[in-house]
């Protein structure tokens, strides 16, 4: 094998050595956490052994490393084909293994085959030969394309995306507006769309703080919680309507943002992150323990639903003199009316967030946020007050979080501290980061992928956070500023936007 690969800077023996090293690492990392399961029994914990998982981990590591070696070293075509064939055999091995889960101690299939009948030996050789041939002949193309069109293609996509962001945004808005007309009868579709929209709004809100001002806020969920609890409490204790509470919730959340932000915004990036995380946790602990006010872990239930702008109600049975929504518009009663109304409500709230963000970015305050993200010292030398500027980003982000919280409370009708854990902050942050810091459309895509898909593929729900975490790492490694993080200038003098973008892409 080594003779086949010796074309470039790395010899076959070195490759084998490298692979063996990482195989051992994978073995050591997985041998206990994956290889042994602790099982609860009435008598205490017991062990169950899962060697198949360890083997899978090792094989995946080897394949991953191989791929890396192929990319890193400019290995000859034959060498690459050999490596790919080895990987393919390993993958095949794994698939067979998964299908024969009951037989965990089986020896590798290829060894079985080699000692089996002539037919099986022929089959095995044929398999290897075919894979090798495909790998070998496709390799030339790939190598050639990677130089030319590989980067070119992504440049074309980037150019198309960046010159048409407005159109793409408009199309998206139209889609979300007509969504209830397409799926109006499907309750779960509307529910899901509403949920996704809440996260889009939260993502856009946090985007102001993280994407524009460059402040890593790990406690964003605190403002969401403040919004939700302010509405729930105001409506329960003072009987205020949703329409009055909505701005109040935003104001409360923003004030919280200012109170929390004032002492800590002087801190450097990562300190700020950990302090905001701390604040998020403090608020949650207080919500759990301040039983008299918040109901503790039980939360607050039967929170009032919003009326149709105070003109009509959505309930089926109404007291005398109260207009029903269906009466107002001369429709038959349907429980969907309220849900669709709520969907439009969050859509409008989210769009307001987006509109304000886009507008603010082109105003002095937005430019100052971005300048601050780039260089705080330079900002100070230009007379920009860093604390106030950061504070404004923090407060505005918090305000939108508060709006979203109030909406969440009224839609669910029930809130408890469980909805406001650190994980929630991490999810919102992941949406912003994966989408591309500062990118509005990126947030929408990330929210759909991260909230929508797991809800659709429930069987994967268990792996959702695992994939989140891995995705966050992978995207940072691949594109440290997020997937769609292209910065468009806020003002241009000589060029059109298209020219500017074209100049950057190339």
């Amino acid at each position: 094998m080594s003779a086949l690969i010796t074309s470039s800077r790395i010899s076959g023996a070195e490759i084998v050595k490298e692979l063996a090293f990482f195989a051992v690492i994978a073995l050591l990392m997985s041998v206990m956490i994956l290889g042994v399961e602790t099982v609860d029994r009435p008598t205490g914990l017991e062990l169950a052994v899962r060697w198949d998982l360890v083997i899978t981990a090792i094989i995946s590591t080897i394949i991953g490393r191989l791929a890396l070696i192929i990319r890193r070293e400019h290995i000859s075509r034959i060498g690459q084909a050999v490596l790919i064939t080895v990987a393919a055999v390993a993958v095949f091995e794994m698939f067979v293994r998964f299908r024969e889960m009951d037989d965990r101690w089986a020896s590798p299939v290829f060894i079985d085959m080699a000692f089996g009948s002539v037919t099986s030996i022929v089959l095995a050789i044929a398999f290897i030969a075919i894979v090798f041939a495909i790998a070998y002949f496709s390799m030339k193309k790939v190598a050639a394309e990677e130089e030319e069109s590989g980067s070119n293609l992504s440049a074309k996509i980037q150019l198309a995306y960046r010159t048409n962001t407005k159109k793409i945004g408009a199309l998206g808005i139209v889609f979300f507006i007509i969504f209830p007309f397409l799926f109006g009868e499907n309750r779960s579709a509307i529910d899901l769309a509403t949920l996704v929209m809440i996260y889009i709004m939260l993502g856009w809100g946090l985007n102001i703080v993280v994407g524009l001002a460059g402040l890593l806020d790990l406690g964003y969920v605190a403002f969401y919680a403040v919004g939700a609890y302010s509405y729930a409490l105001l409506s329960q204790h003072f009987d205020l309507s949703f329409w009055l509470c909505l701005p109040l919730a935003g104001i409360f959340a923003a004030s919280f943002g200012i109170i929390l932000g004032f002492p800590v915004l002087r801190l450097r990036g990562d300190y700020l992150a950990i302090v905001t995380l701390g604040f998020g946790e403090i608020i949650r602990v207080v919500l759990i323990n301040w039983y008299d006010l918040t109901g503790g872990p039980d939360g607050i239930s039967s929170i009032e639903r919003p009326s149709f702008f105070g003109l009509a109600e959505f309930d089926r049975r109404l007291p005398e003199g109260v207009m029903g929504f269906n009466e107002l518009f001369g429709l038959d009663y349907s429980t969907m009316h309220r849900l669709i109304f709520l969907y439009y409500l969050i859509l409008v709230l989210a769009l307001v967030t987006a509109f304000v963000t886009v507008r603010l970015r082109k105003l002095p305050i937005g430019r100052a946020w971005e300048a601050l993200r780039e260089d705080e010292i330079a900002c100070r030398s230009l007379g920009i007050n860093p604390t106030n500027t950061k504070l404004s980003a923090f407060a505005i982000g918090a305000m939108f979080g508060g709006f979203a919280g109030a909406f969440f409370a009224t839609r669910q009708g029930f809130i408890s501290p469980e909805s406001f854990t650190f994980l929630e902050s991490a999810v919102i942050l992941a949406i912003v980061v994966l989408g591309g810091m500062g990118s509005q459309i990126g947030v929408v895509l990330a929210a759909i992928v991260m909230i929508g898909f797991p809800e659709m593929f429930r069987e994967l729900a268990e792996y959702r956070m695992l994939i989140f975490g891995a995705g966050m790492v992978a995207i940072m490694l691949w594109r440290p500023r997020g997937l769609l993080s292209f910065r468009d200038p806020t003002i241009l003098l000589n060029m059109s936007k298209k020219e500017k973008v074209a100049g950057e892409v190339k």
Partner: protein
Amino acid sequence: MDWAYFLQQLINGLTLGAIYGLIAIGYTMVYGIIGMINFAHGEIYMLGAFHSLITFLICQAAGISGILPLTLLLMLFVSMVLTSIYGWGVERIAYRPLRGSFRLAALISAIGMSIFLQNFVQISQGARVKPMQPLIEGGITLMESPNFNVQLSYMQIVIIVLTFVLMVVFSTLIAKTSLGRAQRACEQDRTMAGLLGVNVDRTISTTFVMGAALAAVAGMMVTLYYGVIDFYIGFLAGVKAFTAAVLGGIGSLPGAMLGGLLIGLIEAFWSGYLTIEYKDVATFGILVLVLIFRPWGLLGKPEVEKV
């Protein structure tokens, strides 16, 4: 004032503080050398706890759990080695490629790693709390008062002594060996250290490995001390240990230990005399106050802003 009660809180606080201190050293060393918060360090500690638990169960299945010293040594050794590899792997995968990239990227990658590891353990080992029978039982009654006996358990002695020994070993390692010298050189100026022939990558990897090994010890001690662990213990312990590192002065080894002890004491006394529910709030409160009024901590040096 009930002195017996006070003394008991003091003992409990010191024990807890020793554990926090061990984790805090990992934060402080990593921060010192690459200037970032290793957000996944709490998860490393959690993995240490799981490794020691599983090692114990294997010993039990193999029938050697009767020989207590052997079992304890095996638990210590296996969890330190295997957890170190996780520490090494985390640096290799999530941080090294982002060294020199912009700050937030590495931090976000660290958070992603933390979420990943937490869920990895949750899925592979189950979300339920894992119980563990007490291995080291009994203790010394230090003081008898009419309504309260002050207990110093053998477990607490083991924790405090082991922590002390490890502290001495690691301080010597950093003060006296060439590895420690390389580490301190990288802290000062990574580029220059590299130019002078220090293998910077390896030094940073070693730092992660050392931090993870200490966190593994902390994880094992928590498993033995409290007798329950789950996949989520890393989060809170991580934040508290980080607070300890900041309180002591990030980058300073004795500072981390001092901060750990202080946080442990504050938590024990807060729970003992005030409301136990708000003990976490107390820790976070301290973190915020320290960062606002003395961001360089008790034993750290203030940083002069480079313009």
